[in-house]
Every structure is written in C-alpha cells, then in structure tokens.
C-alpha cells in the first residue's frame, strides 16, 4: 500500500464553519489564528472526514453548527491510483453517511484510499496520564493500522470476553453449569494470547524509536515504553490454566478478573511511570514521542499518517520547535495549528502552506516570494 495524502478539505456547517474550504500542502501546512478562531475545529474536520469519527471526546451533536441540522466534511485525497473524495455527513440522531467517490460505505476503516491520521491535542494527554483503557484502545488501533490482517484480534478477544462474562454471571445466578467455563476459557485464552502477542510485538518495535524521539523532543533522562501485560502466560494453554486458577474469584466478583483486557502500556522516565510522576511538559513530550514513533513504523510500511498537531508549539522552547518541525518535514504530511506564525519555524518557506483562520473563514495567505 502506498502513501495517501490529503489535497483539500471542505466543511459545511461543521462547528464554527458555515462553509469553508482549504488546500493542504503535500508536506507541512500551518494553520494560524487567535484562540477560539477555529484552528482546532479545522483539524477536527480533517480527522472527521478521514475517519468518520470525532477526535474529541465531547458529544458528537456539537459537531453541527449551532442552529443547523447537518454537518458535512469532504476530504480530497491523492492516492497512487489517482484522486478520490471521502465524504462524511452527520445529523444528530441519524446514522452517519459516509461516501467514497460518491458510493456509500459502512465504515471508512477498511477503505484503502483513506489516509491514516495521528492527532496531538491537549486533551490527548489523557493517553499518558489517564486510565489504562485509553492506552489499550490506542495501542490496539495502532496494531490494526500497522497490520491490517490482525485488525480483528482485539474484537475477537472482546467478543469472547463478553461471552465469558455473561457466562460467569449466569453461573453465579445458578442458571448455567460451571463446567461450561472450560470451553470459554479455551476460546478466551486463544484470543487473549493472540492479542498479547500483537501488542507485545508492536511495543517492541516502538520502544527504540520512542526512547530516541523522547530525548529529541525534550524529555530529559532515559525514557522507556514498556508493555505491562496482566498475564505472564506464553501459550494459550498457560493462559487457560491461569483463568482456571482464578475461576472462584471470577465467580465471586461476577466478571473475568484476569487477562489482556487489564493490560497496560507504560510510558516511563528514569524508571518511574510518567502517568504518576511526569510533569505536564514531560507527559507532552512523551505523547509526541509515542505518536512520532508510531509514524516511523507506519511510514516504513508505506502508510505514513497525516499528523494533526494542535496547540503544541506555544509550549515548546525554540530548539524543540525546530526539532519538531524538522521531524514533521522529514516525510509524510502534517497540519500544525499555532496562535503565532513565529511559533512555527520555517512557516514562510515556499513548500509550506499557510492558512489563516478567523471568524469561521479560512484564508490561504499568499506566499511572499523572496
């Protein structure tokens, strides 16, 4: 699969935008505007148009411009086989309508001409400091992007887990025989070992680039990315035996207490988890390092993600800004939002697109030729 890049985006009644369009550069695009001008909304629209999902956690209802009924985003992409258009329409209470070149699709996830997207925005720091479930979900999405053939590993485990939990509840209520757990333990253990294997492999490949990038992006001291599996089992049989040992506890508590649904990945500095001991700045650097490490691996497989970076520049000192922009321009496509153009070194370069947002409008600033 070859790289897919975004050439343009069009918004209709999306957040603060009634109607707006923008063209992206093949490499770096810089979005400049005052706070509240709509920079984040433009980045979110790109994410929405490429994935069919919102990049923020808030209610999707708010995606629709106040007083309007339907929000629409269309994204033009350039793939090796030519241009394509992805469209996502959203009306609260209705199923989203997604199209590729005018033809309806159920999901954009399996669409080949869709660019992968990687987002940095301040509320994503939850990935570092929030609960393990966020990190597991992020890791599993990365696994699916990196190895599409293993994309169902997590779903298979989740389905088996839901069934086993339902069975635990029924056994507890005396509605089913405990011996039935033998079968579901085998199914859960098989799916669980597969999930642990892909997670472990992904983290092993990420750990070295992560440590290097963390150092470059301002995380002093030795930074490490590690897998913290709940189970030490190496085979499905071992995991099944572990589940068997904990059966009484599971039945007492009413759910499956052991297995990769309780895994974590740890971002640590000097041997201490950043989740608990990191400053805001250290957590930010770690998140950036993780996203760039992921980009490195995806790029090696021919699918560098579109990087969307919101509100990161103002928090970095000048050398870090330079390093970050250098990384972004080293390959792949990126959109960076900043309050001041001065925060983005090199934003005046001719190969960089500079967009100015204000009052729900997006303007491409004329490049000043030297």
């Amino acid at each position: 699969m070859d790289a897919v890049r975004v050439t343009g985006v069009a918004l209709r009644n999306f957040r603060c935008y009634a109607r707006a369009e923008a063209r992206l550069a093949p490499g770096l695009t810089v979005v400049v505007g005052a706070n509240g001008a709509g920079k984040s909304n433009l980045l979110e629209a790109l994410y929405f148009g490429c994935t069919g999902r919102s990049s923020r956690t808030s209610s999707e209802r708010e995606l629709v411009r106040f007083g309007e009924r339907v929000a629409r985003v269309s994204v033009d992409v350039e793939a090796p086989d030519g241009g394509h258009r992805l469209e996502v329409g959203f009306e609260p209470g209705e199923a989203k309508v997604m199209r590729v070149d005018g033809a309806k699709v159920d999901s954009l996830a399996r669409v080949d001409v869709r660019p992968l997207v990687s987002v940095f925005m301040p509320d994503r720091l939850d990935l570092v400091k929030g609960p393990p479930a966020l990190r597991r979900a992020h890791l599993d999405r990365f696994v699916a992007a990196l190895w599409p053939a293993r994309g169902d590993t997590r779903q298979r485990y989740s389905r088996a887990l839901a069934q086993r939990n339902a069975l635990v509840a029924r056994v507890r209520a005396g509605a089913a025989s405990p011996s039935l757990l033998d079968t579901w333990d085998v199914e859960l253990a098989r799916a669980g070992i597969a999930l642990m294997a892909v997670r472990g492999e992904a983290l092993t490949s990420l750990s070295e680039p992560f440590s290097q990038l963390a150092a470059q992006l301002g995380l002093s001291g030795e930074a490490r990315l590690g897998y913290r599996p709940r189970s030490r089992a190496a085979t499905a049989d071992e995991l099944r035996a572990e589940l068997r040992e904990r059966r009484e506890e599971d039945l007492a508590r009413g759910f499956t207490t052991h297995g990769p649904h309780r895994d974590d990945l740890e971002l640590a500095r000097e041997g201490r988890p950043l989740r608990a001991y990191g400053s805001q700045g250290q957590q930010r650097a770690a998140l950036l390092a993780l996203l760039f490490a992921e980009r490195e691996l995806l790029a090696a497989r021919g699918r560098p993600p579109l990087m969307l970076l919101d509100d990161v520049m103002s928090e970095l000192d000048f050398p870090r800004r330079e390093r970050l922009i250098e990384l972004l321009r080293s390959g792949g496509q990126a959109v960076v939002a900043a309050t001041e153009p001065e925060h983005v070194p090199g934003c005046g370069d001719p190969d960089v697109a500079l967009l100015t947002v204000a009052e729900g409008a997006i303007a491409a600033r004329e490049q000043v030729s030297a």
Partner: protein
Amino acid sequence: MSSLSPPVNRLITELSRLPGVGQRTAQRLAFHILRLPPEEALPLAEAIREVKEKVGQCEVCFNLAVGPRCRICEDERRDPSLICVVEEPSDILPIERTNEFNGRYHVLGGALSPIDGVDPEDIRIPELLERVAAGGVREVVVATNSTTTGEATALYIAEQMRERSPNVAVTRLASGLPVGADLEYADEITLGRALRARREL
C-alpha cells in the same frame, strides 16, 4: 403510523419482524402487497401457511424435513459413519453444492452464546452426543461458523466427544482463501489467517 388502519399496521409490524427488514422496508413491502391483486398476494400467505404446516424437523439430524426424516437421512447411499455438524439448516446448502461430502448432517439450531442464554441443552448437542454414542460413527466434522460463538461451540463439542466417544475423530473445517479469487481482492483477515495456516508444498 396512526393514520393507517389496524390491518395495515399489523402487516407492517409482522413484516418488520423479519430479519434484515426495518420499519421503512416493512412499510414499502406492505404497500406493495396492498397494491397487488389478490391472486398475486394470497399465494404468499398460502406459501407461508403450507411451509409451516408441512415442513418440520428431521427426527435424526434436525434438518428441515417433509415427514419424519429429511431427504439426506433417508438416502441409503449417504455414509452414516460421517457426520457434519452445522449451526443452521441453511448451512447445509453450500456444503451440498460442493458435492464433496457424502456423509450425513446434524443441525444444532444455533451456537453456544451465554450472552443470549444459549446453553448446550438449548441446541441439539445432547442429541448429537447420543447419536454418536449409539455407534457406527467414525468422524464428526464440525462446520460451525468461524465466529466467537461458532468456535466455542466447536470446542465444546470436541471436548465432549473426547470424553464420551474417544474413538471418534473430530475435525474442524479449515479457513483460508476462496479458490479462484485473486489475492488482491481477499480481505486482510482471511488472507492473514491463510498465511498463518500455510502448508508445505
């Protein structure tokens, strides 16, 4: 809805209970049926009545049957020592079309699913175990779906058979690439599975 008369509403409600039919489609079908002349609409009702009156379950394998046994169980040329276990009667059709299978079937009528409260006794697993224990069976081919519930059902059957009829072989359908299909068009999951289960040439 309330502007329609009760018989029309009833038709729409009944149609919307069919799998894959939502409220909108049910309405469209109902209005289509209303437009049909009686001699075209009533055969549908008659066909439903007839199928419910005449078609039952085979007493041996629980396939659809007109009479006590299905056509496959009545066919003396089919090998009774080989049993293929499927979830639904509709799963028999594709296997029959291969012309590769000359054994008999056993239709479970579903798959194990604790979420839906489906236990082994709720599908025809006890009947399968009895049927095999009665003797004359050398192999059971488990052809349940390649889903979580289908796999668990296969595992359960295999465990039970090992305990009760250890001399009977239990096999599972392989999963892999559709024949004649270009690799290019295979979905990643299937292709990935086929890669992992590759064999030496």
